[in-house]
């Protein structure tokens, strides 16, 4: 009996050691890795990256920085569309991200408590303009790290086949005339005016967020404001006009838009099935990867028949701001700021940002080969005013979803335009009230 008990205890002991050894080995593995790389540096950097498409480039640049300076840099990328979730759970960990991002003032509302004031940092001084900083009262809560443009990407070769040039499109009326003419001759030409304005989740942001920016922008311009608790909807007729143009001159029936995805539109454009495709400068790499060349591409402003169309440029702005975690240790904060300063001043860092991310608003930015960014520059140099990004002031994701649903129903004929107006105007007021 006694021997049995000893045996049993021995077995338990063995099992227990095996179990705990299992835990222990993985833990010690981690710490060994950490201590090896912390050699010679006190702080470390953990960046929770927002852009999955740039993940690889970030990993490489992080490695390079660690080799040069010995400061360990970890870059983890949140899966597309799950940044808020990932950040919420990561930031409470002991090893929390020292660097994260918010999407403008509305995004900041959730994370203001965690944003270190960057006013006196070397990073802030590298910005080309104060307007690229995100302010929380007087504190600099975030620093924009990329400037992007969107508009109507045009296939100039197809446009020529239809008998027009870019010069023929200088206003909404021109755009409407060209688009409707192409639709009328669709069978003869073999292509449509617009790609499908898909309202699947992978594509609906192009309309419920980016296109909706235009009526908001013009209303803000009229009133001289840069945010509001209640939108009036003064330019919603223009919004309707451009939306009607998109859905009635597309590659598919308006009723089918509810199921069309972002890939659908991209493929239609790359397959030369349509002349116009509303998207942004970030789309350049995807289109060239699919075999499109610079001589058939151009980005033109989204004319909606409002404001001074002669002097309207592309929609240019940013919604991506770097924030440094104020809860991190002193050393980590410093290491993070140093890393970012290196990113925006060193040759390697600026080159990676310009190539992978786009135009960066820093003094030592490297030049870009992105055609759409060059288009934007040309418009600005010609004296046209870029349309600023005001969709960062939209009250919530819920508001965008409401507008998106109403647009989808309107396109399919199951809803009326009044529903869109209600979602836009009343939805704004109620969502603004609900988030303040």
């Amino acid at each position, binding site marked *: 009996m006694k021997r049995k008990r000893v045996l049993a205890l021995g077995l*338990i002991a063995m099992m227990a050691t095996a179990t705990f050894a299992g835990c222990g080995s993985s833990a010690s593995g981690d710490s060994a890795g950490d201590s090896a790389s912390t050699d010679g540096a006190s702080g470390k950097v953990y960046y929770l990256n927002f852009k999955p498409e740039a993940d690889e480039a970030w990993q490489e640049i992080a490695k390079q920085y660690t080799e040069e300076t010995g400061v360990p840099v970890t870059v983890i990328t949140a899966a597309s569309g799950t940044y808020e979730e990932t950040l919420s759970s990561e930031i409470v960990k002991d090893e929390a991200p020292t660097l994260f991002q918010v999407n403008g003032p*509305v995004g900041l509302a959730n994370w203001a408590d965690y944003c270190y004031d960057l006013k006196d940092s070397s990073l802030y001084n590298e910005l080309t303009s104060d307007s690229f900083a995100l302010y929380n009262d007087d504190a600099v809560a975030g620093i924009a790290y990329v400037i992007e443009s969107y508009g109507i990407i045009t296939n100039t070769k197809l446009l020529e086949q239809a008998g027009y040039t870019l010069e023929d499109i200088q206003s909404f009326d021109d755009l409407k005339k060209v688009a409707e003419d192409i639709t009328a001759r669709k069978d003869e030409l073999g292509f449509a005016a617009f790609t499908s304005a898909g*309202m699947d989740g992978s594509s609906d942001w192009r309309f419920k967020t980016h296109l909706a920016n235009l009526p908001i922008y013009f209303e803000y311009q009229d009133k001289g404001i840069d945010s509001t608790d209640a939108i009036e909807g003064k330019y919603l007729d223009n919004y309707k006009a451009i939306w009607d143009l998109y859905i009635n001159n597309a590659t598919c029936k308006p*009723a089918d838009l509810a199921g069309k995805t972002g890939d659908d539109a991209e493929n239609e454009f790359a397959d030369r099935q349509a002349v116009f495709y509303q998207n942004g400068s970030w789309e350049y790499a995807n289109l060239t990867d699919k075999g499109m060349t610079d001589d058939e591409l151009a980005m033109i402003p989204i004319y909606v028949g409002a404001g001074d169309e002669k002097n309207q440029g592309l929609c240019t702005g940013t919604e991506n701001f770097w924030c440094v975690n104020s809860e991190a240790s002193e050393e980590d904060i410093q290491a993070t700021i140093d890393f970012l300063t290196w990113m925006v001043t060193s040759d390697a860092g600026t080159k990676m940002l310009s190539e992978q991310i786009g135009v960066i608003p820093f003094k030592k930015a490297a030049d870009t080969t992105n055609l759409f960014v060059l288009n934007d520059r040309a418009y600005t140099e010609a004296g046209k005013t870029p349309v600023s990004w005001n969709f960062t002031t939209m009250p*919530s994701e819920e508001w965008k979803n409401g507008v998106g649903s109403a647009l*989808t*129903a309107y396109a399919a004929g*199951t809803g009326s335009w009044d529903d869109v107006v209600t979602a836009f105007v009343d939805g704004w007021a109620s969502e603004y009230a609900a988030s303040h």
Partner: protein
Amino acid sequence: MEKAIRKYWPIFVLPTLAAFSVGFIYPFVQGLYLSFCKFTTIKKATFIGFGNYAYAITDADFWHSFWFTALFTVVSTVLINVIAFAIALALTNKIKGSNFFRTVFFMPNLIGGIVLGYIWQILINCVLSLLEKPLLALNATYGFIGLTILMCWQQIGYMMIIYIAGLQSIPDDYIEAAKIDGATTGQILFKIKIPNVMPSITICSFLTITNGFKLFDQNLALTGGEPAHASEMLALNIYNTFYSRTGPQWKGYGQAKAVIFCIMVILISMIQLKITKSKEVQQ
């Protein structure tokens, strides 16, 4: 040996208990606490009392999604169990290739909910488009039917396996004796087979009811709650409250909804267990 177990049971319970506490009890208690708080991250929570619950029970979308979910659960539970039982009956008769069919029916269960949701979305949208009807994202009724079809397709195979096991465990003597006594096929089914597979019915209805109530992946992928929250089920409603609203108060609202949701699921499945258990017979 029994003495030893009596003496050392804490040691044997410990690993499971530890895992259960860390993985379930602690998060549950913390979640309960957070439902009374205003918070952005779980470390910075301020206690505010019952405010979150007051909001949650007055939220019209929440109640809409509750009724939508309840209706879906009833319809899918009945359909899945009836069809699964019928298929199980058919496949326990000695027909050719019954093993092959069992595998085929079970297969959909091996595919994840999100993937299934997207596949069915494409299929159903194609059909609707050909019929010139509004697509899934535009019509909550089609969304409901689509979800029901999807869940039936996915779950029938799994429940069928459980029913097959139940049917096979009925001793042949019972059925033979009934036949000698002149019972009809219908009588054998209702007086012998069904009472004897009651334990399987308990477990299958428990699984289908809770799966119906907790449905998330399929809902997210198939309809995403469109149009305008009309096909949004409880779990998705909680998720949207948590992540698609701005401001620190929404996390607390979502948390309160989640606690209410949890209590509802527990209550409903308890009632169901009680009802079906009472009908079980001893062999």
